[in-house]
């Protein structure tokens, strides 16, 4: 009944926690520097001569997120358990899922903010040419959804352990799987290894964030891709709640 109010209170606290510590600023600065460097130096934005951001800007996001999102998510539950505030939080008159969703939303909004701050790239490309801004918008949405999926996976690993470092490493590996499952060299390798089980290769590939992000990058808002990311988030948050409950019972 009052779930929305509880979620809002928790999100607000969590968001302010990012900004009272240097984490938020360090994260945003590094994220923006990486984006700038890879877009203009490595991605060859100017040399390409195309009025688009797909190949120079968005293609790096799955890889940036691989390291940066687990860094944002690692403290979510690990710290709460280490300091003991989990006991405070879960003895308040709220449902555990409200806490899980509240904390997730805060971090996701924070990632959204970092993403929005890349707007100078959009201004640049609009100044130099006339890109299809619909495509750019769709890719931004896709990028944010992808970040959410990574973040939800980090929620699980953060709930598993008290140590932020362990949480970080496990979630990098898990997210790496989400990328590599759709990485062309890996797909080729799988196809060669398992030519009798092509359906299995298809199943593995369908778990890749890259495959699902590709549609957004082309400007296609396919409901299946949206559902994929949302279901990864939903499933991961549910798993987080199961893990937290298990900790309390044993």
């Amino acid at each position: 009944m009052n779930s929305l109010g509880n979620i809002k209170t928790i999100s607000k606290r969590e968001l302010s926690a990012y900004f009272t510590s240097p984490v938020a600023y360090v994260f945003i600065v590094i994220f923006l520097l990486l984006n700038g460097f890879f877009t203009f130096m490595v991605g060859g934005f100017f040399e390409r001569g195309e009025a688009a951001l797909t190949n120079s800007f968005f293609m790096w996001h799955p890889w940036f997120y691989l390291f940066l999102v687990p860094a944002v998510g690692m403290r979510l539950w690990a710290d709460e358990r280490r300091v003991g505030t989990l006991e405070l939080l879960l003895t308040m008159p709220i449902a555990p899922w409200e806490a899980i969703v509240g904390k997730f939303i805060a971090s996701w909004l924070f990632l959204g903010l970092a993403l929005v701050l890349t707007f100078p790239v959009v201004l640049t490309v609009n100044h130099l040419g006339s890109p299809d801004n619909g495509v750019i918008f769709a890719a931004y949405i896709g990028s944010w959804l992808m970040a959410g999926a990574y973040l939800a996976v980090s929620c699980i690993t953060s709930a598993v352990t008290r140590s932020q470092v362990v949480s970080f490493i496990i979630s990098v590996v898990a997210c790496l799987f989400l990328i590599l499952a759709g990485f062309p060299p890996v797909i080729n390798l799988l196809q060669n290894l398992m030519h009798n089980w092509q359906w299995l290769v298809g199943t593995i590939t369908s778990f890749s964030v890259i495959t699902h992000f590709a549609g957004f990058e082309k400007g296609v808002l396919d409901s299946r891709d949206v559902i994929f990311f949302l279901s990864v988030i939903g499933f991961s948050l549910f798993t987080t709640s199961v893990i937290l409950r298990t900790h309390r019972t044993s």
Partner: protein
Amino acid sequence: MIKVQNLTKQFGHKRAVDGISFSVERGEVLGFLGPNGAGKSTTMRMITGFIPPTEGIVSVGGFDIVENPIAAKKLIGYLPENAPAYTDMTVHGFLSFAAEMRGLRGDTKTKAVQRAVEICFLEAVLHQSVDTLSKGYRHRTCFAQSIIHDPDVLILDEPTDGLDPNQKHEVRQLIRRMGEKKAIIFSTHILEEVDAVCSRAIIIDRGRIVANGTPEELRRKSDWAGAVTLTVNGIAANAIEQKLNQLRAAKKVTATATGNRVTATVFPRTAGDGDLTREVIEATSGWQVEELRTEEGRLDEVFRRITLPDTKN
């Protein structure tokens, strides 16, 4: 207000809490005593709904903590062991957060925070970040969080741990004052606190309740209850021992000499026997007695005897 029935918690092969039952009414302050690892914190965590019990029922204000957790938790204020708090927040921010989590908004919230700050003497550090606080202030901040919504039930896990003597005194006063209108459970291993604060005490050992009563009742279980201690000048220790041992109500006499002076203690045959004092006075007439007093019994001795049955002598 609080009803606990046959509460049990199993961790793997270990029974941390083993069939505990008790109840606490409004206006009562229940002291929870026991050696480390006796199951005090586990019991409190089950009462507050942090961990589910393996067996048994907890009801708070009529609401079952497992069936109806949110309604039950609304009535409870909880200070966990080690007083955790969000270190990245200011004291004011933390208390506002706690108030909001309790559903307080706007003016009511401001007033609630103000009230808790006044009660816990936090004005001086209100805008300081929690991780820069001294242990005493941090403890009081977490304590303030637990009373922010003026709950009917307070569960305090070692509320005076790590405080200096003045702060301890303040917190005890506070608990006693609030205990007039609330149902309070607090755990401690400092026995003086039981006398200072509790209307009733429970001693837990290895997950079971081994004693339950008012501090006076517990003290009366002591060998020291009704014992007579006297200081005598100018008579040899063994002569005193011999004489007092012959008393009808005496069970045992110990005597130690320091110079010319002997301090002797006569233990009663039955604890709390008032006859002993009279007999000792009669027997010592003519002696040069400097001091004579009847002991009330010692809680620490009761505590040691019932929580360590192997070393009983």
